[in-house]
């Protein structure tokens, strides 16, 4: 405590940007005792991800994944969201910054707005929708998208009829329809915006990206030919909630296209016309879009025109193979030089050079340009505001060894502002910057967060139900279709209902006060509100009745808006009948509701890290700096792992020095204990409460686990490796280079993808292209007379690494592509070697004499991965790497809570990515460990041991391993692990499980009411 008082560090963080990276950082921080100020330029948080239809390589719905996260951010007690906001200045230093934020006028008062959207419906001014990429329209008062958070509309003063005319000096009031439509009186045309100042300990930059404007490249016809669209427009076309409702149609004539072409690298890898870097994600999203398009319309024949297929991520190559083999996607390695429209038909003729150089004209019905990423237009200004240095391309300048630190201490960066990357890498960086901020501000943790004081809960068990029912008009959203008064009339005399009434806006602040009054006056012990969806509004009402002293699970919400009035407009009688039915269902359930006591469990503030490589050590240091006790268990006798074989990064950083200093820091940190030459014998327990015994007998109590078991390098069996001392791996070559053992004038032939990207190892090892380029550059720089050939399948120098590929070519490194079906042949020839390979450019065989053949050998999971996986019951993918909880949004978590993963154990990756993921795992673990106690959710399955037959059905089907075999040899249930999905309850032959608030008697009661024969509308 004295620490906290004496420190001048602030316990709050400013997060600039409300995309998925900023959201992840904010949630991690706010969940672990820090106050977060989130600044977002747009009227809603969400960023780029909300615009996407699906995500690769799993095909998950993007909005379905991110929407609950947005709700969580929006509702978080310790996240203040400032939308339509920009930071204008930053002063101070690490631990104590002062930032000025300018809020643009919204013209809608969030305190009064209920988000009903009636204003938008009445607004006459249509504006091309930025969200739908100009393919559809929005209004001038609008929400960015239906699930927007905050759910307060904003008026776009560039278009609003009233505001624009007032600005021009019109004497008479124009329009003002929104003001009239708003029953809550939230419209405020005189909003001037404001400027606020926040005092924070750290700043996280997550401003996201801009996309390359492909109109610059006129030859591709964007903006000229209507059926040439950008990849983001195509996302909106695919989206079921997009402008075409998911139908793949051409903008020009609504025709369903058959032949659709994707053109890759539009605006990327093009230093002359556009950006030199690789945007890292386009190959995969084009693959995804072609698959999804085909799923929407099986007649579509997708073709992807590309230079190198950069499927470098986890399970990406398999995805591409599936696209090829199962969906018939055509991958055409060719550069498209021009597109022209076939007059009349709207079809597009693509001109491209085949690999042999001949020019081909091919007609497509639609063309998608895979546009790349670039920093925001105002990135230079942005960097200046925050006092950080940009790199040459105006991305934030970072180092591979400190991948999320900017040049200004205490200011961190996440997401595409650090360089092009995909969603999981962004989320990882989000958790990583959170981890960094937690470490920096550890002593200020909990100093600025709010905790609500609650009155004691009223005892209602055994009381007869006394239900209050509130039916909401939602302005006219519900009331214009549903006869609200009739609904009240129909339910007011139902058994258990003691009071029923209607209200204009159930969610408004004054109604919350009314509810509290009602609970008291009518002595209610249950509440049913009939309004909108429980997915967004249940927590609000639960909070209200909790404030009134009722257990929050004595509430139920009947959705008569989204699921009734809005989808049955114009059918008043039918909709009213249905609304009555829905409310009766809620009442039937409510009668059977019982208060649910939620438990908490204590947390041991310590972490166990398995694997003492760079990932394990990085995570350990971050957690130890956060103030937690850390134990590293390393199988080998020394720390360092695979990085011990590394000398320099591609960018030139000295890895050995870095490793030595990191080992030194770990060894000397008072909070870190290192166990080398040791393994885990067994672990027991659950999140917050693990107990581990090591092979040396040491027992450790800890609250979280990070698995950083690493990987190994594949030892080649091909290309005469081990048979000739002239055949070496990149790692062995690197060592020779470092030891200056390279002879002048030698010729090197490097072969890529050795042991990668072929069954049974159908995955990219991600680092080998950079390794080859790195060593080739080192050789050429030391000895320009040396010759280097790189035989490759696809060069995958993704992101900003593309620079080095360019540099290698400039230095005279010769790149020759080979095909997997026609692999190079290596033979001994005199004192040296000879390599035969087919050159697709020259269309003939090359026979290259070589002094050295260098094999780019890939990664394999560490052999212990299997054992460790079994020990912690965590799954692995078919290649043997650990499988995270969710490939997009939970890239360092496992489904079992309290266990995290980082580094090569998760998938092949570069050193900077390993460091990032390690920091992320520390951030995620920090969230768990920062709690004194963890709350167990109320919606969980309750197990009745007296009914249980220990048949193991639940044990076998539970995705979270919450049922277990107890010490008495019988099935028991760990409620801490339970997520309340109820699969156990459905399978249990003894009905020994019931899910709180979804009990069978409650569900059956709802069913009975839902399907009982219709009676006429009471009082109607």
């Amino acid at each position, binding site marked *: 405590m004295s620490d906290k008082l004496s420190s001048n560090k602030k316990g709050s963080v400013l997060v600039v940007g409300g995309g998925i990276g900023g959201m992840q950082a904010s949630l991690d921080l706010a969940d672990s005792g820090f106050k977060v100020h989130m600044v977002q330029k747009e009227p809603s948080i969400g960023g780029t991800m909300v615009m996407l239809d699906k995500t690769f390589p799993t095909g998950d719905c993007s909005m379905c994944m991110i929407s609950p996260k947005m709700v969580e951010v929006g509702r978080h007690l310790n996240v203040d969201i400032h939308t339509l906001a920009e930071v204008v200045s930053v002063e101070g230093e690490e631990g104590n910054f002062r930032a000025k934020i300018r809020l643009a006028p919204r013209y809608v008062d969030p305190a009064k707005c209920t988000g009903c959207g009636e204003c938008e419906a009445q607004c006459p001014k249509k504006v091309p929708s930025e969200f739908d990429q100009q393919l559809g329209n929005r209004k001038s008062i609008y929400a960015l998208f239906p699930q927007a958070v905050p759910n307060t509309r904003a008026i776009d003063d560039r278009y609003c009829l009233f505001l624009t005319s007032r600005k021009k000096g019109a004497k008479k009031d124009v329009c003002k329809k929104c003001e009239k439509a708003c029953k809550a009186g939230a419209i405020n045309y005189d909003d001037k915006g404001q400027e606020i100042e926040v005092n924070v300990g750290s700043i996280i930059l997550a401003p996201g990206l801009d996309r390359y404007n492909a109109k610059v490249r006129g030859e591709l016809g964007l903006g000229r030919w209507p059926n040439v669209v950008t990849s983001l427009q195509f996302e909106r076309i695919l989206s079921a909630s997009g402008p075409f409702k998911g139908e793949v149609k051409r903008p020009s004539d609504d025709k369903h296209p058959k032949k659709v072409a994707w053109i890759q690298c539009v605006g990327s890898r093009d230093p002359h016309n556009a950006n030199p870097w690789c945007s890292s994600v386009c190959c995969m999203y084009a693959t995804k879009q072609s698959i999804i398009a085909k799923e929407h319309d099986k007649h579509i024949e997708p073709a992807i025109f590309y230079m190198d297929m950069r499927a470098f991520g986890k399970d990406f190559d398999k995805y591409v193979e599936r696209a090829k083999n199962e969906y018939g996607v055509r991958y055409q390695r060719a550069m498209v030089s021009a597109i022209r429209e076939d007059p009349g038909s709207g079809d597009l003729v693509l001109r491209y050079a085949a690999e042999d150089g001949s020019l081909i004209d091919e007609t497509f019905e639609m063309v998608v340009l895979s546009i790349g990423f670039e920093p925001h237009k105002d990135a230079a200004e942005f960097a200046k505001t925050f006092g950080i240095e940009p790199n040459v391309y105006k991305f934030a300048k970072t180092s591979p060894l400190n991948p999320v630190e900017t040049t200004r201490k205490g200011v961190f960066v996440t997401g595409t502002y650090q360089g092009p990357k995909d969603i999981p890498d962004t989320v990882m960086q989000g958790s990583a910057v959170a981890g960094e901020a937690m470490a920096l501000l550890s002593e200020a943790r909990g100093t600025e967060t709010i905790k609500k004081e609650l009155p004691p809960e009223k005892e209602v068990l055994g009381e007869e139900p006394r239900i209050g029912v509130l039916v909401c008009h939602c302005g006219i959203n519900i009331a214009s279709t549903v006869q609200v008064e009739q609904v009240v009339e129909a339910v007011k005399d139902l058994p258990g209902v003691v009071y029923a009434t209607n209200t204009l806006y159930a969610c408004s602040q004054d109604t919350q006060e009314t509810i509290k009054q009602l609970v008291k006056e009518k002595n209610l012990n249950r509440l049913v509100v009939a309004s909108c969806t429980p997915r967004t509004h249940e927590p609000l009402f639960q909070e209200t009745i909790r404030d009134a002293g009722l257990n929050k699970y004595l509430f139920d919400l009947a959705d008569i808006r989204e699921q009734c009035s809005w989808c049955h407009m114009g059918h008043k009688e039918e909709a009213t009948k249905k609304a009555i039915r829905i409310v009766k269902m809620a009442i039937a359930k409510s009668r059977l509701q019982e208060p649910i006591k939620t438990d908490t469990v204590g947390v041991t503030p310590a972490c166990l890290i398995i694997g003492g490589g760079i990932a394990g050590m990085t995570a350990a240091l971050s957690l130890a700096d956060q103030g937690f006790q850390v134990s590293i268990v390393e199988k080998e006798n020394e720390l360092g792992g695979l990085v011990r074989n590394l000398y320099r990064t591609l960018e030139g950083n000295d890895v050995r020095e870095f490793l030595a200093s990191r080992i030194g820091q770990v060894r000397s940190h008072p909070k870190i204990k290192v166990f080398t030459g040791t393994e885990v014998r067994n672990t027991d327990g659950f999140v917050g409460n693990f107990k581990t015994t090591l092979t040396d007998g040491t027992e450790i109590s800890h609250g979280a686990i990070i698995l950083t078991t690493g990987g190994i390098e594949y030892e080649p069996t091909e290309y005469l490796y081990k048979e000739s001392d002239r055949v070496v791996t990149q790692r062995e070559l690197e060592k020779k280079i470092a030891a200056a053992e390279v002879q002048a004038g030698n010729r090197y032939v490097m072969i890529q993808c050795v042991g990668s990207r072929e069954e049974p190892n159908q995955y990219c090892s991600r680092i080998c292209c950079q390794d080859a380029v790195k060593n080739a550059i080192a050789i050429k720089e030391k000895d320009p007379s040396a010759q280097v050939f790189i035989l490759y399948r696809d060069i995958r120098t993704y992101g900003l690494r593309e620079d080095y590929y360019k540099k290698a070519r400039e230095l005279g490194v010769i790149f020759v592509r080979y095909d997997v079906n026609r692999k190079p042949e290596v033979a001994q020839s005199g004192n040296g070697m000879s390599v035969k390979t087919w050159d697709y450019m020259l269309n003939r065989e090359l026979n290259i004499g070589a002094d050295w053949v260098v094999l780019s050998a890939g990664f394999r999971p560490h052999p212990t991965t299997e054992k460790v996986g079994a020990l912690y019951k965590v799954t692995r993918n078919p290649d043997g790497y650990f499988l995270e909880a969710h490939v997009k949004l939970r890239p360092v978590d496992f489904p079992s809570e309290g266990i995290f993963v980082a580094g090569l154990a998760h998938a092949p990756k570069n050193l900077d990515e390993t460091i990032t993921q390690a920091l992320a795992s520390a951030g995620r673990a920090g969230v768990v460990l920062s709690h004194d106690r963890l709350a167990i959710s109320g919606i969980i399955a309750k197990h009745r041991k007296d009914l249980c037959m220990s048949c193991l*059905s639940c044990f076998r089907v539970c995705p979270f391993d919450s049922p277990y075999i107890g010490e008495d040899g019988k099935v028991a249930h760990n409620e801490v692990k339970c997520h309340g999905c109820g699969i156990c309850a459905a399978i249990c*032959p*003894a009905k020994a499980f019931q899910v709180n608030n979804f009990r069978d008697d409650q569900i059956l009661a709802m069913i009975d009411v839902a399907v009982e024969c219709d009676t006429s509308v009471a009082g109607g």
Partner: protein
Amino acid sequence: MIVGKQKPFEEIWNMVKDFKKVLVYGCNTCVAICHAGGGKEAEIIASMIRIKAAEEGVPMEVKHAGIERHCEPEYFEPLMEEVKTYDLVLSTACGVGVNFLSERIGNIPVYPGINTEFFGAVPQAGVFTELCAGCGNCILHLTGGICPIARCSKSLMNGPCGGTNKGKCEISQEVDCGWYLIVERMKQLGTVDKLYAIQQPRNWSTARDGGPRRVVLAHIQDLEEEEAKKES
């Protein structure tokens, strides 16, 4: 554990359709674990019968209940009075339970709702396998712990027939050859030489072939004999 499988509904319907008041009676031990005849399945069958009866326009009252075991009288005797108010008991216990209840319920019929299959292991959720045939004369010590009576389709005693195909039985590629497993297991145990000796024809009288069987614990047998003596 005894493994059962629900009868086709059509068969159940034909059994029950002429009765007015039917109790579907679940047994909450073995057949509940195999998701065939516990109280929960009884509830499902009862519901299906009610739906069918409504479809057919047959007035019928159908209820369900479940008790711990049908094969021990103490479990059902306390409920007997109520059970006897029905016209028919459709028991979803194994055949043992159906027999047992039927013998004790007086003039109310007890019909089977499930087919009793075998006693089996549960290698994974929802999968049940037959490993023992209950022949009354165990020879597992001679066959590496794998029973040729239960797991060879022909119950051969002296090794695999000519039908072994890639380790599978001639009756189906889905069925392992029991003898293949036995030989491989005994090789692993280093006791394959036990299989060189000829097994003589078996005495099947300990199995079902010897007539209905009865096991009586020794001290009970003594008591029974004493009783018999007294009576004579």
